[in-house]
């Protein structure tokens, strides 16, 4: 008989070595997350996947699943906390969805829709951040970096390059590249590197490709982030949302 945990009262099987996130996703239970990608070492930095395990809050992406855990995921309090975290991510950078080329394909935007985030709540910081367009093919827009370290991990673990790192602490935290000049053009990055394509926001981009995917064909035009994430993880299919819940764009079908 397999071991189980419960999430919001639902019995979920798990195997030794799985995190709560792994077990939940495999069972078709979505826990919001930004810094987590199943193929990379968990980092636990964005805190969006915070769940309550036997009365104590912890990150689902780093916390191992253990027999007897009673986990709360979709509580009003946790959803509100996640919304606040997302709002803080928005105000800390410069995220202008209306003109951003990542719009419709952006996990930060999609998770904000999922959490029903309707405003920033907190005052915008308007930080003065640079665009590094020095490389011929790849661009960093630091305005949109949320320090998830996915590019750091992808470059190290998959590309074997160590192009990226996070430097500084607290509000001075920032993404740096492995070059004395501090410029992307002096690193060994290549447009085909996994690190370039892993960014959940529009901070790392392949140049001159923006807006090529028409509205209606972008990742989150017709599916919410939970549907997309669960489908990608290979878990069992989830029921489609009613059309009124569709996010990101208008329905392209005529006569709506």
């Amino acid at each position: 008989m397999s071991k189980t945990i419960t999430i919001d009262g639902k019995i979920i099987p798990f195997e030794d070595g799985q995190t709560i996130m792994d077990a939940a996703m495999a069972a078709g239970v979505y826990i919001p997350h930004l810094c987590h990608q199943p193929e990379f070492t968990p980092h636990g930095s964005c805190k969006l996947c915070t769940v309550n395990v036997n009365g104590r809050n912890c990150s689902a992406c780093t916390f191992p699943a253990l027999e007897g855990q009673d986990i709360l995921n979709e509580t009003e309090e946790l959803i509100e906390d996640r919304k606040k975290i997302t709002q803080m991510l928005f105000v800390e950078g410069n995220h202008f969805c209306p003109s951003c080329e990542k719009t419709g394909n952006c996990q930060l935007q999609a998770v904000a829709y999922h959490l029903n985030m309707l405003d920033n709540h907190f005052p915008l910081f308007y930080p003065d951040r640079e665009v590094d367009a020095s490389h011929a093919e790849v661009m960093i827009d630091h305005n949109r970096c949320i320090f998830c370290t996915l590019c750091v991990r992808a470059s190290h673990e998959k590309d074997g390059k160590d192009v990226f790192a996070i430097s500084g602490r607290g509000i001075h935290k920032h993404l740096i590249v492995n070059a004395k000049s501090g410029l992307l053009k002096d690193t060994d990055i290549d447009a085909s590197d996994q690190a370039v394509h892993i960014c959940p926001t529009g901070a790392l981009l392949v140049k001159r490709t923006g807006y090529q995917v028409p509205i209606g064909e972008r990742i989150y035009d017709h599916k919410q982030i939970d549907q997309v994430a669960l489908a990608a993880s290979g878990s069992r299919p989830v029921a489609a949302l009613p059309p009124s819940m569709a996010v990101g764009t208008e329905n392209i079908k005529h006569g709506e």
Partner: protein
Amino acid sequence: MYEHLETAENRDSLKRVVVDPVSRVEGHGKVTLLLDADNKVQQARLHIVEFRGFERFIQGRPYWELPVLVQRLCGICPVSHHLAAAKAIDQLVGIDPENLPVSADKLRRLLHFGQVLQSHALHFFHLSSPDLLFGFESDISKRSVIAVLAEYPDIGVQGVKLRKYGQEVIRMVSGKRIHGTGAIAGGMNKSLTKAERDYLLEDIDQMIAWSAASVALIKKVHCSNLPFYDEFATLRTNYLGLTKPDGALELYHGGIRAKNEHGETIIDHIDYCKYNDYIHEEVRSWTYMKFPYLLSLGQENGWYRVGPLARVNNCDYIDTPLAEAARVEFKAHSGEAMVHSTLAFHWTRLIEVLHCAESIKTLLNDPDIMGSDLVAQGEKRYEGIGVIEAPRGTLFHHYQVDENDIVTKANLIVSTTSNNMAMNESVRQVAAEYLSGRELTEPLLNNLEVAIRAYDPCLSCATHAVGKMPLQLELVDAEGKVIDKLIKHSDGQIERDNA
């Protein structure tokens, strides 16, 4: 002409009347009048009081963002900014208009016809028809599209549906009714599916019929109020716009043509990439909007009007039959080479609505709009200029980029900017001829707004003179006495005036 009313002497002794905000226009503007003891108008100005500054904050952004970023200038004519920027960035990837894939060119034209149709319909039916149907000095409760829908339901509903159709064209081509994507450097990101094409074809004949009816309506309104409609706020000016190589009306791409008040050609078939050799802009301290003029005629005489009146005046013919017949009738009514009536902007706007509806039908029946060859690419360039006939007139987008694809310089000459001098002159004229010496009432002041509204100004599009704008800063004490004054001149020099 009433240039002397731009700045009055003894301003402190005059009574101030303000129309703020000017309503039923896009953006925020106000009119100020200074009156003497006999209520005679001594000064009349249209001030554009908002400031946008797009020219500055698109610097530092990658060029492929431009069509999507700059269209946020406006919610009424975003497609025009989208396409002007797209034409400019086509050049940055080495594609001139003649090298754009045929399908992309036709899809962009379809998108633009949808845009002009919806913007013109919005302006005529929603914003201006209350003035034209109920009278300029009618009761304020009647001066809205709601009253039009109540008293002239057929006209009101046709207007709403015409606009909706234009927006559906935009949605099918660019994904959204407002602020879609669509145009990318060197082409388009999608073509129309057969289902989308068929959906738009369903209603196009009805749209053509309603457009033709709206031309008949404005002709009736205009001609039954002669000579008032030919004289109200009317200016004998130069006109500027794009035309096709054969002189036909053109909205998407052509050479610059300017004619003077007698219909004589000033410039013709000018490559718009050389616009800087022909058009300059002047700044003044009391408004955020610049004043463009034709260099060859100088600041004083070189100003011109743009928009539907300029286009219909300037072109030799229109290449769709119903609109061409309407143009011939329109020109015949005045008996002059050029029609100068400011209220004739409305008539010409509706002739263009008809032209757009006819052109949309032609394009929808063209299989190229469902083609798959959508993007072309050439050799990188560092400067791009895109010019288009937006609903409100000729729109210039000019960008420079560096070797990293980042925008380093931008200049936008927005349609409404070109009509700035004319709108001010029309305001001064109405103030002098209809308001001066009379006890001012709210309905009477609407005459000023009717004059401005005829130009269909988009005030929020048109205010970008950052860094060049002369400004005056006054510190006033509790008694209203000026205790300090800083003046920034247009060359950037700052002077303190303690006099």
